């Protein structure tokens, strides 16, 4: 299967007072055609920046220092000029942002804002455009599209606005849809509506999805493959099935454990100690999760762990899976400790 999008060793730096700090470190992932891919991570893990970098929309203080983003195996998105990028944005790759209020311009009607995308990429007549807009608004489940398209964003509710944003993103039938926390600002009942709608529409339009979220539940509901990010790095990359049934990286294990103990009142809620390091606190060498890891070894603090293929469809960035990480400080076999953990986890 050929890859629609391939990111190789992408690094992004931020410039703070004349010095550069690395915030996304050597990130690699590939999204196949029609695949639903998820990136999950806490705030500050660099997941949104990755999506912004794909769209070539990084702010001035941010820069890609290394790596490439290949779209359809030929186009290198990081080197394209703004003019060339304009042809791709909205047509081949489109993006949905978290806040439907700020994504829509308050002073233009819904019809005008959706038609803008069509004007840039196609040469349709006004009548054709109107018909296209009405049909896409119907597709995203907006009642009375003829009258709703004449209204302004403030007249619509949050869920309706997000539907409009989805309509706008899908009207050119893009090959890749990036959804950056599309349901975070919405209520659960509306979130369920929107996720269902996105699943339906991407099937219908043969679109690949890159779903960016902090919520593993959303990943479980929508995605096939997932990359877990921590402090600017992918720590684990796997199929969603494997990730939920046997997480390998200690960070993923911790996340899932804290989710699973939530709601079980007899047990103390599992929590990962400490905080996510800020970009200025990050060290050049060693594992970025070392300060919070329950299986930490001396090795972890000195040398950066490699990516290890732990099973057919699962890659984890941890010393535990290698020969060198076999024994931890207490002389206990670390991989055994991890297995024990998994056992308690699966019960």
């Amino acid at each position: 299967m050929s890859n629609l999008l391939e990111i190789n060793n992408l690094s992004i730096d931020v410039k703070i007072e004349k010095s550069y700090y690395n915030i996304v470190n050597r990130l690699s992932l590939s999204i196949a055609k029609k695949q639903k891919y998820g990136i999950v991570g806490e705030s500050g893990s660099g997941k949104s920046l990755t999506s912004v970098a794909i769209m070539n929309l990084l702010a001035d203080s941010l820069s890609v220092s290394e790596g490439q983003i290949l779209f359809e195996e030929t186009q290198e998105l990081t080197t394209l000029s703004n003019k060339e990028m304009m042809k791709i944005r909205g047509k081949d790759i489109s993006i949905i942002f978290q806040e439907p209020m700020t994504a829509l311009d308050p002073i233009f009607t819904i019809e005008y804002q959706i038609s803008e995308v069509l004007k840039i990429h196609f040469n349709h007549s006004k009548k054709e455009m109107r018909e296209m807009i009405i049909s896409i608004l119907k597709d995203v489940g907006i009642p009375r599209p003829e009258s709703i398209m004449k209204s302004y964003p403030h007249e619509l509710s949050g869920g309706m606005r997000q539907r409009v944003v989805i309509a706008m993103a899908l009207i050119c039938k893009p090959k890749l849809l990036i959804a950056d926390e599309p349901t975070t600002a919405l209520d659960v009942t509306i979130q369920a509506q929107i996720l269902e709608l996105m699943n339906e529409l991407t099937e219908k339009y043969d679109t690949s999805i890159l779903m960016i979220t902090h919520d593993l539940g959303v990943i479980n509901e929508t995605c096939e493959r997932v990359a877990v990010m921590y402090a600017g790095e992918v720590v684990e990359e796997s199929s969603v099935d494997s990730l939920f049934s046997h997480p390998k990286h200690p960070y993923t294990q911790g996340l899932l454990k804290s989710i699973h103990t939530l709601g079980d009142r007899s047990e103390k809620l599992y929590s990962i100690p400490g905080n996510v390091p800020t970009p200025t606190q990050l060290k050049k060498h060693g594992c970025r999760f070392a300060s919070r890891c329950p299986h930490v070894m001396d090795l972890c603090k000195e040398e950066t762990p490699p990516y290890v293929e732990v099973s057919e469809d699962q890659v984890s960035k941890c010393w535990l899976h290698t020969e060198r990480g076999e024994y931890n400080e207490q002389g206990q076999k670390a991989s055994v400790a991890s297995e024990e953990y998994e056992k308690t986890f699966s019960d």
Partner: protein
Amino acid sequence: MNKVKKPVLQVKNMKKHFPIKGGIIKRTKNHVRAVDGISFDVQEQETFSLVGESGCGKSTTGRSILRLTEPTDGEVYFNGEEVLGCTQKEFRKYRKDMQMIFQDPFSSLNPRMTVKSLLLEPLMTHKLYSKKEALNKVYEIAERVGLSKEQVSRHPHEFSGGQRQRISIARALIMNPKLIILDEAVSALDVSIQAQILNLLIDLQKEFKLTYVFISHDLNVVKHLSDRIGVMYLGQMMEMTTTESLFNNPLHPYTTSLLSAIPSYDRNKKKDRIVLKGDVPDPANPPSGCPFRLRCPQAHELCETHKPVYQEVEDNHWVACHLYNEGIPERKRIRL
């Protein structure tokens, strides 16, 4: 449960209507019925949660109990004393026993004050201790919530979100309150930090014998923390019961669909999801009869014409829905 049951807080038929003003002379045209007749009791050392979607009035309820917005109607009893009737000045003596923690740890702490002065302020306002005693108290509480002595002299911007929420908790705790109202206290935090703060809240509750009113939209968090839960919709209580029976035996159609909408973490269990149609109606023009009827999968004619009675259909299980009207003895019905 071997706790001595005694209601710390009783809310009776509380209403909060915000006027909508318009025209040249700013005449009141209509009201937004943010909270429209809510009643509940909170027992000592209990965690009572209010859940619902945005705009259902759960935060307004919390703020009205503390009179941060004056309720339009109703009664609130704190330890058996009516507190809505007294003046704001008289109400002050209750304030040290009733504290609040807000959602956004970035805007609820004054950026120009150090943590020390933030924590000292309530003690000085209520003139309970001498300066020296107060300072000792500040260090003691700060340490309890996990802040070191050096950190206490820093400003809020130097802390992460989770740490800031610890400061907010310390500020609420320093008055030795009986009741803390937590308005979306962990919603702005990441999963791993959220777990830390929830554990802290649970430990503190045991240690200081606290009573919590926990306001949240996150049902997973609510499930973990609460003893009893009230589900709100459009300013009204739809269902109220213990955590166990709400999650295992939800009675109201709204609760059922709300529970089914939570994204599941279980790979093997794909739930049958009830996806609700449409949005929450405008609280300025609520539908006639049952507020939920426009989105309810089980709505019938009666729901349009008659407002369902909020009644105890099972032991400790209150529901406002016509589905449970039959077979309920007349004396059990309580009209609001």
